[in-house]
C-alpha cells in the first residue's frame, strides 16, 4: 500500500467505536458516584485513556497509518510521559526529607 493512499474505514467500525466511547462515558459517570478511595483517579484516568486510544487509533486513522506516523504518535506519548513522570518525581517526594534515608548526623556532619 502506498503511503499516500487513503484507507477506507467502514461505517460499521465507526459506529462500533462511537458506541464504545458512549459506553466509556457512561461508565465514567457511574464510577464518579462510587467511592473507590485512592483508586478514584486511577479508574477515571484509565477509562479516559482507553477512550483517547480508540479515538487516535480509529477516528484519527493511526491504526492504518504508515509506521513513521505511528512512530511520531508514540514519541509524543513518550514525551508526555517524560513530563508527567519527572514532574511527579517532585510531587511524590515533596514531603520527604533526606534524613529519612541518611542519618541526620551524617547529613549535618561538618
Amino acid at each position, binding site marked *: 500500500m502506498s503511503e499516500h493512499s487513503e484507507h477506507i474505514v467502514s461505517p460499521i467500525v465507526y459506529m462500533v467505536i462511537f458506541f464504545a466511547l458512549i459506553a466509556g462515558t457512561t461508565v465514567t459517570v457511574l464510577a464518579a458516584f462510587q467511592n473507590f478511595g485512592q483508586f478514584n483517579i486511577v479508574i477515571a484516568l484509565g477509562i479516559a485513556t482507553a477512550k483517547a486510544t480508540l479515538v487516535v487509533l480509529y477516528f484519527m486513522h493511526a491504526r492504518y497509518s504508515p509506521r*513513521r506516523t505511528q512512530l511520531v504518535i508514540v*514519541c*509524543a506519548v513518550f*514525551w508526555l510521559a*517524560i*513530563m508527567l513522570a*519527572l*514532574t511527579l*518525581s*517532585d*510531587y511524590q*517526594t*515533596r*514531603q*520527604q*526529607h*533526606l534524613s529519612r534515608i541518611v542519618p541526620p548526623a551524617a547529613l549535618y556532619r561538618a
Partner: protein
Amino acid sequence: MSTAPLVPEHELPDTHYLNATYGSGRSIRAWLLTTDHKRIALLYLASVTVFFFIGGIFATMIRIHLLTPGGALVSPETYNKLFTMHGVAMIFFFLIPSIPAILGNFLIPIMIGAKDLAFPKINLLSWYIYLIGGCFVLYSFGTGGLDTGWTFYTPLSSIYSNSAVTPAVIGIFINGFSSILTGLNFIVTIHTMRAPGMTWFRLPLFVWAHYATSLVMILGTPVVAITLLLAGLERMFHLGFFNPSMGGDPILFQHLFWFYSHPAVYIMILPAMGVVSEIIPTFARKPIFGYSFIAASSIAIAVIGFFVWAHHMFVTGESTYAALAFSFLSYLVAIPSAIKVFNWTATLYKGSISWDPPMIYALGFIGLFTIGGLTGLSLACLGLDIHVHDTYFVVAHFHYIMVGGAVMGYVGGLHFWWPKITGRLYPKALSRFAAIVLFIGFNLTFFPQFILGYLGMPRRYHSYPPEFQVLNVLSTAGASILAVGYLLPMLYLFWSMRYGKVAGPNPWPATGLEWKTDSPPPTENFHVTPVVDWEPYDYRNRPDLGLAAGGPLAPAHGDD
C-alpha cells in the same frame, strides 16, 4: 605586484529570486503573498530585526539605569517593565525565530537540493502568525507594559500584576504556532525532499542541527503555549490552576513553563551550533572532525534537554529528591555539548585557518559558549546554585549562551551566507573590525556580571549597594561598545545590498550544495536538480573549488 584579479569578475545572474516576477510582479503584494522560502526568510529578517532593536532599546535603558547605585533613569516599577519586555522581545520574538526562520528557511531547501520547503503556504502562514503574535505583544508593551519577568511566574502574573499581562500571554500563545509550523515544515522537508545522493550522513551539520531544533519546537512549544493560556485564563476568569487559594499550585506553573523554556534554550543554541559547524571547516580548509558525532550530539542535546528543566527550580520549593535527579541529568547535557566543542577544536588543528569575518564570529562563539556552558554546570550544582541563584551570575551565564553563543552564531551566519542571500560582498576589513568590537563589547558587558553575581548582587533589582558601582559602570560601558558592534554590521550589510562587490556563486569557497547555485539563487534554487556524489566538507577531494589539496585558501574575490 600585479593588480590583476586572481579570479574573474563576477556578474549578478539576470533573474534570481529577488527580481523574479511572480504573479503581480515586483510589487509589495508579490512579497507579502510569496511562497518562496527565500523571500519569506527575508520577511522574517526584517521583522526579527525590528524586535531585536526593540529589545535592544530596553537593554540600553536597563544598563543606563544601573550606572548609579540608586538608579539613574526610571522608577522601580518602570525598571521591572524594562527587564520583562527586554526578555519577552528578545527570547520569543528574536532568539527563537532568528536562525531557524531566517537562515534555516533560506538555506535548508538549498542545502538538501530541494526547490522549496515541503509546505510553502504554511511557511508564509507561520510568518503571518509571528506578526499577529508580535502585534499583541507590542500592544501589551504600549498599553501599560509588562512587569512579571519574561518567565510569567504565577501568582504574580495571574493575580497581582497590574500590567498588560493578558495581551502579552495571548501574543506568545499565538506566536508558538509559528514556531511549531516552522519545525514541522523543516522535519517533513528534510525527510522527503533530499536530492538524489543526499543521504542522511551527507547532510550538512546545519541541517542536522535544524532537524534537532525542529523536534524541540514541535514537542515543547505546545506545552508553554497551553501553560501561558492557563495563566491567562486564571487571570481573566479566576479559574484555579496555579493559585493556591483556588486549589491550584504555583510550582506546577514553573514545571510546565520550564518543560518548554529550558529546551527552548536549545532551540536558540542548536542552530547557532549548526552555523559554526559550517563555518569552521570552510575557513580551516579541512573536513570537519567527527561528523557523525556532531550530528548525533545535536539529537542528543535535543532529547536530553527535555530531562533537565527543574534545575531552574532548586530553590523554589521542589523536593530534594527531584532536585538531585535534575542536577544529575543537567550534567549529562554537557557531554554532547562538549563533543561539539572538542570536534570543532580538532577541526582547527593543523587547519589552514583564514581570518575571514564569519570565522572570527565562529571562534568567538566557541570561546563564549564554552564559558557559558561551564558556568551552567556551576549552576546545575545544587550547593553552588543556592549561593548564586537569582543573582547576576545567572544573568551573565545565560547571556554568554544566548548572546555570546546564539547571537554570535546568528551574526556569523549572516556574514557567511550574506553573499548567497544578496549576491554581494560586504567590506571585509570593516566587518573584521566589527566582529572584534562585538567580542570585546560583549565580554566587557557580561564578564563583570559574573563577579557581581558571585559577590551577591541580585538580578531584577533596580538599585544596588554602592560597592558594586565600578563593575556596573564597566558593564554599561561594555554595552555601549556592544551596541556599536551590532550597529556596524547593520549599516555595512545594508550598504552592501546595493554597493557591495558582486560575490559570485562560491566566494569563500565552500563545499555545500548552496554554493553550487547562483548568488542570489534562482526562484527554483537550481537550474537542474543536483545529484550529490561527494562526502560533506570534503575539502581534500574537491578540485572544482579551485584549491590545491589541503592548500591555503585562495584569496576570495572582492577581498580588500
